């Protein structure tokens, strides 16, 4: 088992560029023997819905380029990271409450459970925390 401190990612932006960066960071860290935990909240939560349409990424110029040139899809990167490495993904309970999203509305192969910020922050004391 790796001795590298785990990587804790808070993902709350709905912007394609930030989502893509978070997906790349999470998946590459996970396949590089580094445990990853992702806390998904606010606008990013919609990405993990079962009915999310990959044509609906919203962003700026770079988002348009990424979609044109067909870079690896963010959701697929999260899936690969989970399959090939150690990654846990929590859906923020607060965001689920506010947006009236149930756990069964979210992709079960990606979202492990609903979670709270307090516990996530406490766990993150053992590692490194970044926010998108």
């Amino acid at each position: 088992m790796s001795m590298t401190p785990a990587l804790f990612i808070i993902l709350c932006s709905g912007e394609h560029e930030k989502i893509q960066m978070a997906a790349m960071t999470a998946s590459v860290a996970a396949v590089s023997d580094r445990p990853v935990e992702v806390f998904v909240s606010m606008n990013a939560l919609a990405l993990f819905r079962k009915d999310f349409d990959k044509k609906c990424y919203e962003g700026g110029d770079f988002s348009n380029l990424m979609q044109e040139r067909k870079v690896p899809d963010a959701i697929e990167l999260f899936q690969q990271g989970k399959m090939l490495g150690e990654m846990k993904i929590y859906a923020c309970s607060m965001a689920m409450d506010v947006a009236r999203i149930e756990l069964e509305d979210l992709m079960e192969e990606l979202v492990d459970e609903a979670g709270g910020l307090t516990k996530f922050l406490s766990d993150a004391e053992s590692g490194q925390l970044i926010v998108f």
Partner: protein
Amino acid sequence: MSKRTTIDARGAFCPGPLMELIATLKLVQIGDEIDVLSSDKGSAIDIPAWVGKVKHEMVEIAEETDHWHIVVRKIK
């Protein structure tokens, strides 16, 4: 007898070539080699960095006109 598998990842963007390499490593035997063809310059840096971190073995990096050969041996 070790085998060499080729992954043609030319045209694929980061981290596509790395992810394809990792998925293929799961399928081959210890001692086998994987030759990743990549047009993404970052892969020529990132794949050796990953190999060093997880302790497989770099066999060769060769630069062609419009792509790289990045050859990795599965050690474990």
